[in-house]
């Protein structure tokens, strides 16, 4: 790791200073409506949710990043949303705060393409993304806390702020956050299932799933790859979750069927609402695609296709908005035509297969 010199330490202090809560709060106070100007009333029959799709762009100032998060929040609020979801890796745009990141990004992008260039760029390559995440963490953590706390309180909405790679006791984790309508941080969730590339980056995986009780129902916020595994949603369902907010940043070329493998089948297997927020675009040689959307059991979607709303483009900014009906969900759970449970079967095999 090459971020321990005095210059780097000095710059890290500058980053922390420039992202300091007082500065961000002062700016947001000047642009946000006062508390109580928007205060939607939650109804279990109609909770309007917005799944945001953010297009990756780098920000060289935390104020500009805050303005962008505000713009997207306001857009959702203008559609009547009470529950708003931001995507996975929402800290990637903040890499633009690092001087010379454009050069570093070029090195990441060209990695492996040209051995000679690789050698020349070795200095940049020595700094892994994991190093950068760890380095920026002292600035990013308070920054996002301030931004989303203020946005949630100003508009009286619940915000799943997306996920962020942050330092945690010597490791780096991928953690999503939930803010309540009073601006309080209600909880977080560490990504439990990592992608192979995240294992290469030495990210640390989470060890448990959380559910948070709110006036909008019981909410959970697992991260991206967690939706590849039925176990995630089954456990959340067993813990009483009603709505799963899933930030994603899919590292693959868009294909309808590949994209169908995540939250959509999980919502069908476990009776829950699913809100998928997506990061799209390119950075450091990685290309993210996805279509943000809001999903439910086939039986309670108008077209019987499990989709309530979905962004059209897998590559550009967008927003999916739909109404969630918790009463309909609970009615379905009580009277489901095909759902069953076989505890004897699970007791027979689970201890063995999950050992």
């Amino acid at each position, binding site marked *: 790791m090459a971020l321990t010199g005095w210059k780097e330490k000095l710059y890290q202090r500058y980053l922390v200073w420039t992202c300091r809560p007082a500065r961000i709060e002062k700016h947001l106070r000047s642009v946000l409506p006062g508390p109580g100007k928007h205060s939607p009333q939650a109804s279990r029959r109609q909770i309007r949710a917005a799944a945001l799709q953010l297009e990756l762009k780098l920000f060289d100032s935390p104020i500009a990043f805050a303005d962008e998060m505000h713009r997207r929040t306001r857009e959702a609020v203008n559609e009547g949303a009470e529950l708003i979801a931001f995507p996975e890796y929402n800290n990637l745009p903040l890499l633009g705060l690092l001087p010379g990141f454009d050069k570093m990004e070029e090195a990441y992008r060209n990695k492996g393409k040209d051995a000679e260039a690789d050698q020349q760029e070795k200095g940049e390559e020595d700094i892994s993304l994991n190093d950068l995440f760890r380095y920026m963490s002292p600035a990013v953590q308070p920054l996002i806390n301030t931004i989303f706390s203020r946005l949630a309180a100003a508009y009286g909405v619940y915000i799943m702020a997306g996920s962020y790679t942050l330092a945690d006791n010597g490791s780096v984790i991928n953690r999503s956050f939930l803010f309540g309508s009073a601006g309080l941080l209600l909880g977080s969730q560490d990504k439990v299932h990592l992608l*192979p590339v995240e294992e290469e980056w030495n990210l640390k995986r*989470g060890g448990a799933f959380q559910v948070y009780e709110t006036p909008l129902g019981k909410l959970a916020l697992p991260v991206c790859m967690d939706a590849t595994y039925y176990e995630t949603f089954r456990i959340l369902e067993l813990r009483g979750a009603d709505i799963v907010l899933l930030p994603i940043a899919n590292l693959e070329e868009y294909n309808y069927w590949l994209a169908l*493998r995540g939250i959509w089948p999980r919502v069908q297997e476990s009776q829950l609402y699913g809100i998928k927020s997506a990061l799209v675009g390119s950075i450091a040689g990685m290309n993210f695609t996805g279509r943000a959307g809001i999903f439910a059991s086939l039986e309670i979607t108008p077209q019987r296709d499990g989709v309530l709303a979905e962004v059209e483009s897998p590559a550009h900014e967008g927003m999916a908005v739909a109404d969630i009906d918790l009463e309909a969900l609970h009615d379905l759970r009580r009277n489901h035509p095909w759902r*069953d449970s076989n505890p*004897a*079967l699970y007791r027979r*095999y689970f201890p063995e297969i*999950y050992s």
Partner: protein
Amino acid sequence: MRVCVISMSGLRLNDADHYSSDLTDILKSSGAELAVLPAHSALMLGLAGGALEPASDFNSSFQQYIQSHRDWNNRFIDIHSRLACSNNIYLAAGTLVEKDAGAHYHSAYCFNPKGEICGSQRQTHLTWAEREIGLSRGEELNIFDVDGFQAGLVVGNDARHPEVGRIFALRGAGLLLCSGALEAGLNCWPQAAGMWSQVQQNQFWALEAQLSGTISGRTFGASSAVIGPCEITPGQSGYLNRGYPHTSMVTADLDEEARQKIKEDYPLLKLLNTEAYSDLKML
């Protein structure tokens, strides 16, 4: 390995000899080493051939079958044992209802090319209607050999319960033979939520035979399909081949090397985080 899934559409069911002859024609034309028939094959064949008494509706016919199944089941098993043997093929014969220790189970049987039963499976998750009829849940998932593949049978509604596929996969199954029967209608999404999803999260093969036809006024129709991990199927769709609800047979060649490679490149099951599953272990 060449495989085929059969919907029973177009087969003459009114006579066991006609049925065997038509099925033999299909099996021979497919060139398959393994074939799968859909759910309710015994009920449909028994009613059409007069071995079972029809009732006014599906549930009543099913109830009657439950009460008087023994002779017909023996005959049904004998027919399919002979078919497997005469066609030198592994044949998953669809489903029947059997009684054991006072309980009734919806079960599937697979025969090897010698005509012997090489695998059987009781349905482990029941629909609300099946519980009402009085069926009981099986409590085991059996793995058996099919020409070198570790295989399992998936019966009806088990396709919609991911625990089934996961247990099979983590115990080493690489090939699931699914006998289904969905009432005719918009079934593409329920099917995608069923075996297709189980294949994608476990990276095994699935042969999904869906019943096409009418039993006591209830019409069944869904797409039979051969399903594999998206990455090794045309258009990354997850379907090696798929029919329409009335397609009588769907064939495909399983490329096991390709499946093993995708399991190495994208080792989904190795990335499970069992430390986080204590809630499931305590069920």
